[in-house]
């Protein structure tokens, strides 16, 4: 533990011995093609599959009627007041470009693609609902007619005394900012192979789904099949980032087809365009923030009015909004907050969880807000943060929304980041360069993020020392490239005193893996329940090994040590037993077992640490709204187990002629508590940060007024490449979490939250000396936007 070990899973990946769904060698495969809606909004009058069924090689085809007859609707995660109407294939209406309308399975992928073109669909196009601000108030033209509205969610909360805060303020300011719809776009798209055994009535799925337990529970419900007749196998996942959380549509479509092919397995892998149109993306947000503050920089309170655009489905509608309540005051001691949050549907791609969910938006709002105040007061952005931080001695800190931050030292994070970047010298350099017509900007972001998943989530793991002393671990949670295999091995190796490389970690198979309803990887969950149960099971095993070893060595268990695969009495290393000998005693020679120790060396741990219950309060005043079940109450899904934090400093140069932006330096100081593998943690920090930089500068899903997606490939939807990423300097501060039995927090989302604000703040800091209106209202910060701002500022300057 604590060592930067190379990952054990890498050798196989480097040799090309990968097991992504497309690599799997399943015999007798048939291939699925999906017919998708070309309209953003239309009545679905008739679907005629007969043409497709006539194509040689086509085995069968299904449409929404089949889906409606034999499956349940796609469930809603957050909205509790409206009944979902959506199935895995469209019925009655199509509601976004790319929505699945029909599916065909054939002996050959090319035949399947040709066959879907023979399906005749009658649409009656309707006006597309695209503008979220208009949609929220629309009195007609609803995405779901029976809802009678597009505004499917409304959260409202009033914490502290907001009116008083505004009354006693020296100044107030108001701004509108927005965050675009984007996605971490995992390189591997959604993929599934489904096989239905008509004799045992068992459905087997090979899928790259992240949330194994959620999928087992939800698919069982949706298909009306018992969970012990569903076998989910998850091997390699080519990136998840949340988009692969619950891929109901491909899973259900493939399952339905598999039940109609006389037992032959069917394979569906979406192509890039399908992924961009239909796999899911973040919710967009329009934020109106009004802040009340004193002239010394102290922020007394703020009002936040939001409109969230969740696309065309109830599936995750309201989730981004609700997640924001978790970090509503950021890293600052602000108690007076009014939060008024609307969620609207539109005829765009449904929202799906994506790296941080609503947290990047909330961090953006708070970190921009404090920057606006600093600008108004002409105060140094570092100084204003220092004056508002939650002090290091005020933990555990209960936020106005009832979440409890476990530990943190935000001033220390900022101090270290400023030291690394040599802040004072940099400000001097900035002034010098300005005199010579060169404009650099410094932007800060100091923030908290929620991690280790939501406090009520539990995981399962079983660890076995087999009859020959070899160790196998099997977790309810899959690995999606974030180093679980190696980290689990490190934890077990530390407890059992073995070489971590000698441990085999199985891939997920619902028949064998101890999954819970929460199993899976999301929200930096691994650092919470996954690590906890691994420790619990490993410790139980260790206790057994120690007891048996003590018996064999005729010693006191207290004096037994485990190291290098040897079990020995402290101080007498030469006289040792091996794990193989312990195992032989355990499985083959019960006479050698001490009193009370049963045969076998296998332990399963299911749960989390009881310390996690410190994450929520029972007497907080919670917000009320249609998303009641998500945001309110103890054990709220949005109350995280741990709260890591970060300080980002972005140093940029703006070209006043072209609007081009260059990142000169990017510094991250993070606090993820105790670090198990520094190499893996740094990899997460860098990967996260580049996601954030992409969102800040490059990425955006754009729909035209008819709801056509204009950015459906990487030609138009820009991702960072090796040419765009700056060299990132990272360091850390450690405030262990009292809620983790080893003091860790989470890493895996955190650094993607900062760059949106740090870069916007940096660009404004660079352009500010020109005067005029240099406000960046929307992301991404493209060269065109910067160019427009510069031109406008120069024009205003020339006028005066």
């Amino acid at each position, binding site marked *: 533990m604590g060592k930067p070990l190379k990952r054990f899973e890498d050798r196989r990946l480097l040799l090309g011995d990968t097991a992504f769904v497309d690599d799997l060698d399943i015999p007798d495969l048939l291939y699925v093609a999906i017919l998708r809606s070309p309209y953003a909004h239309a009545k679905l009058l008739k679907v005629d599959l007969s043409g497709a069924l006539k194509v040689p090689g086509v085995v069968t085809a299904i449409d929404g009627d089949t889906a409606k007859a034999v499956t349940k609707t796609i469930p809603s995660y957050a909205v509790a007041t409206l009944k979902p109407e959506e199935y895995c294939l469209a019925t009655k209406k199509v509601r976004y470009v790319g929505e699945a309308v029909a599916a065909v399975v054939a002996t050959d992928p090319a035949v399947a693609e040709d066959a879907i073109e023979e399906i005749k669909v009658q649409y009656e196009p309707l006006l597309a609902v695209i503008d979220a601000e208009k949609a929220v108030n629309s009195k007609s033209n609803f995405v779901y007619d029976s809802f009678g509205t597009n505004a499917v969610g409304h959260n409202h909360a009033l914490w502290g005394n907001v009116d008083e805060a505004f009354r006693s303020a020296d100044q107030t300011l108001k701004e509108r900012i927005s965050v675009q719809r984007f996605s971490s776009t995992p390189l591997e798209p959604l993929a599934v192979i489904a096989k239905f055994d008509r004799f045992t009535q068992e459905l087997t799925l090979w899928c790259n789904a992240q949330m194994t337990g959620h999928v087992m529970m939800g698919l069982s419900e949706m298909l009306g099949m018992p969970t012990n007749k569903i076998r989910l196998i998850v091997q390699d996942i*080519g*990136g998840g*980032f949340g988009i692969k959380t619950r891929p109901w549509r491909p899973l259900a479509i493939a399952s339905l087809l598999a039940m109609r092919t006389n037992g032959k397995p069917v394979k569906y892998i979406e192509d890039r365009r399908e992924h961009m149109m239909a796999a899911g993306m973040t919710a967009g947000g329009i934020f109106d923030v009004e802040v009340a503050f004193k002239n010394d920089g102290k922020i007394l309170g703020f009002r936040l009015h939001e409109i969230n655009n969740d696309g065309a489905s109830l599936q995750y509608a309201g989730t981004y909004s609700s997640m924001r309540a978790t970090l509503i005051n950021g890293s600052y001691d602000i108690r007076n907050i009014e939060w008024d949050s609307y969620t609207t549907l539109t005829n765009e791609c449904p929202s799906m969880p994506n790296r941080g969910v609503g947290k990047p938006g909330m961090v953006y709002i708070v970190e921009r807000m404090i920057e606006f105040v600093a600008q108004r007061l002409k105060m140094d952005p570092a100084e204003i943060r220092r004056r508002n931080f939650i002090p290091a001695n005020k933990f555990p800190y209960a936020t106005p929304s009832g979440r409890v931050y476990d530990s943190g030292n935000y001033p220390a994070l900022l101090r270290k980041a400023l030291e690394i970047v040599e802040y004072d010298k940099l400000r001097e350099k900035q002034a010098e360069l300005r005199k010579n017509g060169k404009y650099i900007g410094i932007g800060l972001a100091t923030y908290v993020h929620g991690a280790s998943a939501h406090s009520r989530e539990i995981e399962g793991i079983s660890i076995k020392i087999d009859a020959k002393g070899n160790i196998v671990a099997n977790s309810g949670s899959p690995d999606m490239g974030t180093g679980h295999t190696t980290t689990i091995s490190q934890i077990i190796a530390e407890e059992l005193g073995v070489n971590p490389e000698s441990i085999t970690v199985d891939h997920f198979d619902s028949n064998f893996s101890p999954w819970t309803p929460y199993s899976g990887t999301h929200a930096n969950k691994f650092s919470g329940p996954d690590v906890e149960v691994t420790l619990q099971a490993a410790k139980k095993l260790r206790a057994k090994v120690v007891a048996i070893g003590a018996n064999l060595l005729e010693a006191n268990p207290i004096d037994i040590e485990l190291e290098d695969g040897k079990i020995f009495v402290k101080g007498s290393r030469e006289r040792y037993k091996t794990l193989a000998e312990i195992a032989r005693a355990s499985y083959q020679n019960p006479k050698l077992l001490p009193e009370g120790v049963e045969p076998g060396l296998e332990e399963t741990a299911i749960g989390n640490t009881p310390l996690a219950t410190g994450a929520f309060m029972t007497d907080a005043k919670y917000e009320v709204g249609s998303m009641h079940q998500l945001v309110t109450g103890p054990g709220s899904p949005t109350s995280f187990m741990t709260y890591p934090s970060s300080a980002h400093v972005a140093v940029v140069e703006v070209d006043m002629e072209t609007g081009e932006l260059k990142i000169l330096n990017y510094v991250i100081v993070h606090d993820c508590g105790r670090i198990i593998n520094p190499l893996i943690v740094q990899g997460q920090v*860098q*990967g996260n940060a580049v996601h954030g930089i992409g969102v800040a500068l490059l990425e955006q899903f754009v729909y035209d007024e008819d709801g056509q997606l204009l950015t459906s490939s990487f030609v138009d939807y820009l991702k960072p*490449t*090796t040419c765009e*990423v700056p060299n*990132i300097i990272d360091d850390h501060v450690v405030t262990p979490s009292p809620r983790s039995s080893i003091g860790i927090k989470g890493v895996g989302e955190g650094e993607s939250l900062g760059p949106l604000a740090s870069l916007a703040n940096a660009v404004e800091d660079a352009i500010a000396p020109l005067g005029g209106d240099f406000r960046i209202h929307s992301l991404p910060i493209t060269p065109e936007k910067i160019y427009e701002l510069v031109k406008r500022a120069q024009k205003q300057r020339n006028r005066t």
Partner: protein
Amino acid sequence: MLMDGLPVKSCTVFAVQADGSEITTTEGLSKNGKLHPLQEAFWESHALQCGYCTPGFLMASLAILNRNASPTEEEIRRNLSGNLCMCTGYLNIIKAVKLASEKMAKVRN
């Protein structure tokens, strides 16, 4: 993959076009289970997470190193910009190519 030593996208080259050419894929980098210095460098530098983009990056990097045994960082960044990675943020990949060029130099000497 490499086609006669040049990096090409396997999905846009017809098999007939490759007739008579020497094709090298990731699987051809290691010999008898012994990793190529490039693969070792990726491993030590933590230049892969999910592994999905790795074959592409390995072959594109090899093409760079075959042309210039000591590429500059600028050269590496420019020549790898045709490959996307969603997990690593690229910095460790760039590090890995630099490390590989050092390893390969040692092997040659």
